[in-house]
């Protein structure tokens, strides 16, 4: 009995790479599907068909978690981050955010390229009412060959 207990057990230290490969494959597919379905994660929590311009500048501030981003959809709906708002309520919401002194005093506007300028104007007025001057429009870069008006 004792002798059989002392018998060295079968080595059980193998790494089961097949299961690991299965998990990795699953992770890759999930990431791939997420990116393909929803696109790359967008700042402001919403994706939009942004205007395409030739010479945009980098907007690192828009990537900050506390960036104030106003989304304007094609049909003129206005969202402060992901919450739909009335432009008339926007000054108060911006003012609330500005109580945090670390917040950049700039509003990033992410408007759909086919949104009417008349839908953007109330947002600009609201930003002005909140006491801010600086805005930035988020855009996409396009190649020079694709520029036609």
């Amino acid at each position, binding site marked *: 009995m004792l002798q059989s207990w002392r018998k060295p057990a079968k080595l059980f230290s193998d790494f089961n790479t097949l299961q690991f*490969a299965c998990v990795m494959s699953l*992770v890759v597919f999930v990431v791939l599907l997420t*990116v393909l379905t929803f696109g790359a994660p967008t700042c402001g929590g919403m994706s939009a068909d942004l*205007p395409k311009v030739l010479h945009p500048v980098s907007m690192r501030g828009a990537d900050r978690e506390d960036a104030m981003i106003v989304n304007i959809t094609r049909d003129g709906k206005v969202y402060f981050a992901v919450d739909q708002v009335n432009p008339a309520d926007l000054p108060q919401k911006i003012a609330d955010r500005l109580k945090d002194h670390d917040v950049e005093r700039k509003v990033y506007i992410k408007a759909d*390229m086919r949104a009417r300028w008349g839908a953007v*104007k109330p947002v*600009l007025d609201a930003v002005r009412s909140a006491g801010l001057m*600086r805005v930035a429009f988020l*855009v996409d870069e396009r190649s020079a060959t694709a520029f036609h008006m």
Partner: protein
Amino acid sequence: MAFSMAGGGSSGPQINVTPLIDVLLTLIIMFMLVVAMDPEYGEKAQIPQPNTDRKEDVTQPRTVVIEVMWTAKDQAPTVKVNQQDVSWTDLEERLARIYISRVEKVAFVRGDADVDFQYVASVIDLAHHAGVQRVGLMTQDQKVAGE
């Protein structure tokens, strides 16, 4: 009657998963890098605050106002620089000529309500590339000083 097979191990084919895992890890890292390094692009602009002290600045030079005027549905709007029609292809060159000798590189952009935002964004972009440092957005139909 007993018989034995040579070699006690399994003789079935086995997939070599090590290179597969290498490839998968590389794919994951590439996805993460592509997503993380996708930068945001934008166009800076400013919203002029209303003049509170009511003092007219008589020495202000003639202000440059770029207007984007709606024409018809599904047609590109017309663009004017200080009331003069300019084609879209000539806009940047025209602005560059204006601002090459100016010290104060400020322009104002005014657009019709029905104009697509794409066109206003293009005007801001071309103005910046032509040398305008600050673009003011006019949301109301008021005149600016010097216009």
